[in-house]
């Protein structure tokens, strides 16, 4: 029996008109466990936030128990019997379990005072009822992540949630905690609760869910009984067919090796799983090397290590034979390395600084007259870049935070591409950009390739990686598990299997 029905949900995010949900239908059955899978940016979290009233859809309808409802806020969602556990827990770290759970609906003494004793009793009762062991007097910030999550779930149950939404509940848990969580979920489902959870891990889908929904770039592409599909089926539905947009590239003339990464390893204190493990690859002149992978498998750490923003534990990085590992970003830039970061506002620019101040950051030495900066010359240089990259800006003294995402990305590109660096790192080249800006970015990247630059591209958009790269490496849990020669026979399906860790292989290059 269907308990929730979402119909034609559409949601776009301003200011870049990103279509997060493009007319989605979703039906949840009472007492079942539903899994929602999809790549990053497929719109899973947005859809769940809409259901929980945290986001408002542009259009679409929601029914609960066949009655049309409006969910303007999480408060209303609670009243309708919905509960959500976010990736980041929303708990007060210095309060006790009981205080956190009853918050907003506290038991009172004489109608005025908070009743500590009663709260503790209530918590004991419900933790027995749902067999979720929890100590009511324990302070949150002394708990393990798994315990905190249990508190979150109890909080929702206390508020009378019949439908539980969990956003990537296992991403923060260790193996044993995951097992415990699954047991809890199954028990809750048996007692009539409906559960939806978002995940990247296909193994979990198979072990715990009854029904699986597969999303891809804002659309619901499939809804299956979990028993009737294999991991491989889900995988191929998630990544889809080989991209239709094809970028014409000239065949590569392999030049000399520019970047060599040898046995790079990053360990973190107290964590057994290395952040990066035995990463080894090369990029030659005029070659684009793409790295595919689900976010959080070490790609960002690799980039930071390459650019000197993060200390490495062992291994070696060199540019044209010169070792750069251990250097700071300034001297790495001086070796002819440039970097277009994924976080354009947090890392790639200073919003309160004006355009010319943003464009000269890596280039001050060139515009220095003794101690002083030659500001007129910088402005001229900036003007020139604004024109040749068609950046929509009134003048070079306007603040960078008044630019739109696309124009800001162009500004970053114009700075990093200046002077034809030997080696270029590009993260998420077109994330959040409209089609026109994205095309412009692709053209520029290919220009750089023609001119003999060695390029590393990291993107969560697999189509982008396949269209641009000459070679593709897949990162999974801090390792490059395979390197493909990007020829016509390579399917995104195959890459997807490596991304999900369904298959691992020996590195060949």
């Amino acid at each position, binding site marked *: 029996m269907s308990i929730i029905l979402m119909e034609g949900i559409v949601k776009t995010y301003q200011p870049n008109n990103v279509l997060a949900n493009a007319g989605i239908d979703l039906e949840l059955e009472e007492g079942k466990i539903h899994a929602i899978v999809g790549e990053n940016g497929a719109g899973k979290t947005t859809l769940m936030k809409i259901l929980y009233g945290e986001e408002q859809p542009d259009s679409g309808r929601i029914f609960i128990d066949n009655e049309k409802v409006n969910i303007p806020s999480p408060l209303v969602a609670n009243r309708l019997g919905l509960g959500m556990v976010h990736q980041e827990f929303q708990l007060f770290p210095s309060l006790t379990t009981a205080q956190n759970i009853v918050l907003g609906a506290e038991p009172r003494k004489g109608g005025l005072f908070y009743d500590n004793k009663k709260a503790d009793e209530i918590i004991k009762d419900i933790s027995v009822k749902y067999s979720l062991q929890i100590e009511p007097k324990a302070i949150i910030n002394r708990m393990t992540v798994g315990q905190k999550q249990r508190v979150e779930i109890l909080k929702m149950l206390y508020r009378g949630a019949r439908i539980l939404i969990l956003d990537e509940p296992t991403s923060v848990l260790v193996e044993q905690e995951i097992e415990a969580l699954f047991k809890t979920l199954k028990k809750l489902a048996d007692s009539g609760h409906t559960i939806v959870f978002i995940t990247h891990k296909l193994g979990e889908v198979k072990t715990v869910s009854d029904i699986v929904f597969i999303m891809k770039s804002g659309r619901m592409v499939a809804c299956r009984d979990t028993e009737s599909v294999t991991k491989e089926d889900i995988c191929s539905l998630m990544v889809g067919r080989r991209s239709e947009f094809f970028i014409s590239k000239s065949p590569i003339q392999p030049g000399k090796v520019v970047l060599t990464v040898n046995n790079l390893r990053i360990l973190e204190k107290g964590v057994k799983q290395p952040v990066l493990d035995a990463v080894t690859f090369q990029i030659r002149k005029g070659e684009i090397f793409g790295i595919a992978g689900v976010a959080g498998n070490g790609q960002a750490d690799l980039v930071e290590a390459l*650019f000197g*923003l993060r200390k490495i534990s062992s291994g070696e990085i060199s540019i044209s034979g010169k070792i750069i590992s251990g250097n*700071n*970003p*300034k001297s790495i*830039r001086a070796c002819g390395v440039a*970097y277009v*970061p994924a976080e354009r506002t*947090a*890392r*790639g*620019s*200073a*919003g*309160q*600084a004006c355009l010319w*101040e943003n464009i*000269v*950051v*890596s280039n*001050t030495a060139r515009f*220095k007259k003794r*101690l*002083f*900066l030659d*500001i007129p010359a910088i402005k001229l240089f900036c003007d020139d870049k604004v024109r040749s990259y068609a950046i929509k800006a009134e003048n070079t003294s306007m603040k960078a935070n008044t630019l739109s995402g696309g124009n800001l990305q162009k500004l970053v590109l114009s700075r990093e591409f200046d002077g034809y660096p030997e080696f270029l790192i590009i993260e998420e080249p077109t994330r959040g950009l409209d089609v026109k800006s994205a095309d412009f970015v692709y053209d520029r990247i290919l220009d750089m390739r023609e001119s003999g630059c060695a390029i590393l591209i990291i993107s969560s958009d697999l189509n982008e990686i396949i269209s641009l790269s000459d070679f593709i490496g897949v990162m999974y849990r801090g390792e490059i598990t395979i390197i493909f020669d990007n020829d016509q026979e390579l399917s995104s399906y195959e890459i997807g299997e490596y991304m999900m860790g369904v298959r691992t292989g020996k590195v060949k290059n």
Partner: protein
Amino acid sequence: MSISFQTKVWNLAGEGQVYLGAFMGIVLGLQIPNWPPVIAVIAILVMGFIVGSVLGLLPAALRLRWGVNELITSYMASLIILPVVNYFLAGPMKMPGAGINTTGYVNKAFVFPKILPSCDLHLGFALALVLVLMTYYFLYRTATGYSLRIYGFNEEFARYGGIGEAKCVLVAMIASGGLCGLAGITSSLGVFHGRMVEFSTYSMGWNGIAVALIARNNPFGVIPAAFLFAYILTGANLSGLLADIPPEVAQVVSAVIYYLITAQALWRIKLS
């Protein structure tokens, strides 16, 4: 203060830097009574700058080496230095026979001449104007000033762009501390006729923070902000003297104004 706040490196040691700058400058002045006045004054000013910047260096080094928050260390450095200076004023450096704790006078030729007779306006004011101009040029025209401002705007961006953190933190603290020290010795040479009196520069460092915040860290804005602040302060004193208003009321009023203005400024620049 403007320099350190624009870099978002928080120098709260201004109070101690002013006090120590004034004291050490005078101590040097007492040792060199026979030097030619111009050279002696320059030496005294340089001394004030150096001791101020040294007191700024300590928190800067602690932040760079161990990541200790300079907000706290600089404040504590300031707290420590005040009683130390007071010890010397009451003890070894005290002018024999004086009724208050003070050093002796330096050579009269070293004292800043007054610009306007019958009030305390002295040559130090002109010096301050020159320093404002220099600070502006430093922050907005030099490569180092540019690095400092970018670091203040966005630390991550500065690091990524190849601006060294160490350089920014050190320069900001040295310049800011040095200028505070200079402010201290200027006041001793001007207002106090070339001696260092206990409590003489009290709360100048704090007022400096308030002024910088009112001016939103713009060096030129510091001038009107300083005047505004001085009017409020002097007005509070005068009304206490003339209008039979107890000094506490005047203090409360000025504190309320001070509080509201800084609270708003802090809210705008978002204390990191």
